[in-house]
């Protein structure tokens, strides 16, 4: 009885478990390094108004400019490869509070004013359906 008990008592950690766990952790490390790259720095800003491309601008050139939306004028600022809404005539100011965006594939939008800023880079893949940062 004691013998059979012992035989059925499985230890939680035997050395093969440790080998497997170590392999899994190492494989995870390799996967993170090879697959989990941060989004690349965007090179260009495209401004869409009411879903129509209005203008594009390089992110390398610091500037502030205005865009006419369906509600009124939105103020945009490009600085050090990043872009933000400085002001917008919308009620809840979500676009302004979002702050800076700089990653390729990232999207900034003022929906009430129908202005969308799309960040693109050389390495950008354009058929991404949705990107969350």
């Amino acid at each position, binding site marked *: 009885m004691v013998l*059979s008990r012992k*035989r059925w008592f*499985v*230890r939680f950690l035997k050395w093969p478990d440790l080998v497997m766990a170590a392999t899994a952790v190492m494989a995870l490390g390799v996967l993170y390094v090879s*697959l*989990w790259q941060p989004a690349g720095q965007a090179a260009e800003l495209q401004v869409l108004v009411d879903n129509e491309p209005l203008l594009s601008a390089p992110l390398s050139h610091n500037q502030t400019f205005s865009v006419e939306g369906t509600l009124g004028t939105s103020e945009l600022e490009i600085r050090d490869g990043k872009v933000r809404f400085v002001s917008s005539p919308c009620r809840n100011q979500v676009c302004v509070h979002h702050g800076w965006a700089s990653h390729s594939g990232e999207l900034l939008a003022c929906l009430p004013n129908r202005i969308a800023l799309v960040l693109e880079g050389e390495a950008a893949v354009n058929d991404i359906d949705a990107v969350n940062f």
Partner: protein
Amino acid sequence: MTAMRLKDQQIAGFAALAVVIHILEASVPSPLPGVKPGLANVVTLVVLFRHGWIAAAWVAGLRVLVGSLLLGSFMTPTFMLSASGAIASVIALGGVYRALGLQHAWSPGPLGYALVAAWAHMAAQLFVAWLLFIPHDGLWRLAPVLLTASTVFAVVSGWATWKLLSWLAERGSADRVDEGAC
């Protein structure tokens, strides 16, 4: 191996237990789509350790089939992912079971088997999702995160399997058949 061949009724009983856990788990919202603890697999692992691979394969297959019928997801994408994950993990468990067994010095314990099952499950799901539903390479970026979750939950279910196995061994339950074997 001293694993006892189960009667059909016993396999059905284990599968029913797994289905209950499967459905309870499906009702718990997950912070990330595709991530859930997979505790139903504890039943599969316990059956694998006590009754061998064939019984475990039956329990896993029945769980996915009956679970999807009860949840209404049979033949939907959810079912495809769940089934491919289950098939892959059963095959992987079978491979390790044949190669390393249960009772040798080099045999993995519950943790090793849980890790094998979880990784095979997640890898197959990712591959099927990429093949059938999201043929975009961006999907692979999720692989490290999802596999991290797999690993963590594998440790949890490996530990639960170990606890259950020890408890069952101490109780010396009636269906144990190792007396006189070997």
